């Protein structure tokens, strides 16, 4: 099974690639020991969003389904974690809150996905239906400010956002709880990213992955070859959306806050921007590119004040004009051309 980590659907399969991967991982693990605690927490924060990007890469890049719904599931899991964490009164039960929040997102994705896919909704219509669903949730939650909008002990609090949930914490030594904040959160997120990344690589290089790519290229042909296209699309949609839910629950735990503005526009367009920028065709590209664009945008905003949005827009425009496959893939190709065989059996997309 682990052999599937390499395969035709992912860039970077040779020993050179995996050596660099291990080097980067080692640096990442060692980072907190020589960096400022603020920077460690900041990097953890960026990595929280990467799950949502990888989920979209799976659905859009590999499955051909452009969905505006990532922030919908981000919100469902985020609010789910908040409501459950508050009602379970924190402590180790926050872990249960996290798992249940993910299950909630998966269930919602199953229902919405079934509704759309079995109804034959595809292409741009898929995007509009997911966008509409996302906006419905955002508007609905935005007006839940009244005291009647309470689930158990948790008050939804409308546009001002829900607060009061504990961050993820587990029992630790000396009768203390380990709160996943700062460096602890950083290590947790690194671990989760590695697991999710490798698991997704295995998924897309497996038979399942080959089928969804075939469906993306030509759904009719896949169907004629005997595959139930709908089941594969639904599975892809559920997996990709649940990853968005993981981002949502972790974000809520990180900031102890979740609000409807994280769900509606323009937040709903952001994952698409990150993945399109990075190169939606490949998981590694999305992982690296999303982190880079989040870091770049924040740095530009800190240092350029009013010109920030202009620089960001220019960055996106330039990428699309100069590197149509995505910034990371374009860069990787450039490097590949300069240094020969570092990227192993990379396939043209």
């Amino acid at each position, binding site marked *: 099974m682990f052999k599937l980590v390499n395969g035709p659907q992912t860039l970077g399969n040779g020993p050179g690639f995996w050596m660099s991967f291990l080097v980067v991982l080692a640096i990442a693990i060692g980072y907190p020991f020589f960096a400022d605690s603020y920077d460690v927490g900041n990097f953890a924060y960026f990595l929280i969003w990467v799950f949502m990007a990888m989920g979209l890469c799976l659905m859009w890049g590999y499955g051909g389904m452009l969905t505006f719904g990532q922030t919908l599931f981000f919100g469902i899991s985020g609010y789910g974690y908040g409501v459950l964490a508050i009602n379970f009164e924190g402590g180790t039960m926050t872990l249960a809150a996290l798992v249940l929040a993910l299950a909630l997102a998966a269930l919602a994705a199953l229902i919405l996905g079934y509704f759309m896919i079995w109804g034959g909704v595809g292409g741009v219509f898929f995007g509009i239906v997911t966008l509409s669903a996302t906006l419905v949730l955002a508007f609905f939650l935005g*007006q839940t400010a*009244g005291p009647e909008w309470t689930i158990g002990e948790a008050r939804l609090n409308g546009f001002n956002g829900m607060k009061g949930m504990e961050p993820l914490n587990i029992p630790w030594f000396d009768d203390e709880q380990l709160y996943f904040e700062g460096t602890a959160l950083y290590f947790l997120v690194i671990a989760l990213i590695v697991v999710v990344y490798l698991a997704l690589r295995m998924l897309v290089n497996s038979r399942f992955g080959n089928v969804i790519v075939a469906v993306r290229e030509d759904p009719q042909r896949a169907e004629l070859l005997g595959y139930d296209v709908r089941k594969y699309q639904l599975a892809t949609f559920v997996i990709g959306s649940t990853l968005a839910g993981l981002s949502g629950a972790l974000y809520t735990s990180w900031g102890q806050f979740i609000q409807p503005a994280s769900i509606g526009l323009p937040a709903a367009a952001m994952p698409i921007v990150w993945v399109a920028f990075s190169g939606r065709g490949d998981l590694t590209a999305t992982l690296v590119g999303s982190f880079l664009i989040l870091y770049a945008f924040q740095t530009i905003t800190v240092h350029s004040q009013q010109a*920030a949005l202009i620089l960001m827009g220019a960055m996106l425009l330039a990428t699309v004009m100069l590197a149509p496959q995505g910034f990371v893939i374009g860069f990787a190709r450039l490097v590949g051309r300069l240094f020969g065989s570092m990227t192993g059996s990379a396939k043209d997309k």
Partner: protein
Amino acid sequence: MNLRRKLLALAGVFAASTVVGGTALAADPLKIGLLEDISGDLALLGKPKLNGSQLAVEEINKAGGIMGRKIELIHLDPQGDNARYQEFARRLLNKDKVDVLIGGITSASREAVRPIVNRTKTPYFYTNQYEGGVCDASMVSIGAVPEQQFSTMIPYMVETFGKKVYVIAADYNFGQISAEWNRKIVKDLGGTVVGEEFIPLGVSQFAQTIQNIQKAKPDWILTINVGAAQDSFFEQAAAAKLNLPMGSSIKVMLGFEHKRFAPPALNKMHAVANWFEEIDTPEANDFKKRWRAKFPNETYINDMGYNAYTAIYMYKTMVEQAKSTKLENLRKVIAAGKACIDAPEGKICVDPKSQHTSHRMRLISVDEKHNVKVLKDYGVIQPYWLGEIGCDLTKKNDKKQYTPTDLPKKG
């Protein structure tokens, strides 16, 4: 002999170094972290806030700073994104290690920032008028709150125009809580709320609303619609010749609609605030002169910009009284009732129980040419509501936001 000389020399070096080190410490700047939106939808409101802060810092630094230390203003633009508010609050608090955090426009941005501030020992100044109710020891609220704005404006409107009011409110916390306040006060005055409409943020078309108002036949309208899109109501109502008196706790003072919309859209608008640029007193005029000397192209010195300016002076007074920048010492100054300044509006103080600010409230009206007249001066009004319902920050830190229907639990 030699040893004594050496010891004396050493003592001399020590003394010299403490003098040098001492002045170096005194020259250590005091860092103020500022989070204001100067891009995106809220730039209209955020830019005057940045200007006000910069003016205050410049004036204070020219006069020698705070306790001999110059102020370093570190501003970050969250672009109207509450996730950025969280990121940048963490950055200012943990990386830049600011002595005080100031900023935030919407209540949502304030609520996003509070959990982060609460994990540190840094004070946070929220400088906007808002729906009230935050009982949090880390926070000082500089803006006006409903008991100061509604308890003055609504009785005036009912006495002057009539007992039937129609409410147009933005459909989120601020609008809904303000509507709650209105219902309570109108009922106590024997009036009726003949209609209430909650408009989602971003909606800009009001034909149905205008028709509903005409059907309900109110004596006046309470306009607590928020945001550029919802402001389109005034133009559309004027075009439909609705022509009713209007009252608001947010119009004119924040978004200077009377300067942005062509007359007579804001005709018959009444508002109560602690600051309008049209206030005509020697202190106010002097302040306006200094502002326009630094920012000659400012369209309007709004309430938010004014509050941003006075917040820094309030902080200066608190630090000088406490002789320290530590939150616990600043809170002692507040508890002693000594956190007071002579602001351009009049003398204002921070209330010990709620850490909100008293204000000199004035009522204005707008005519059909969009001239603004100050009609009434209510004097200084305390932010009494939080203390009344049981918030007492001198005794305990609730860290919560209360509303008229979400009060502290007794016992």
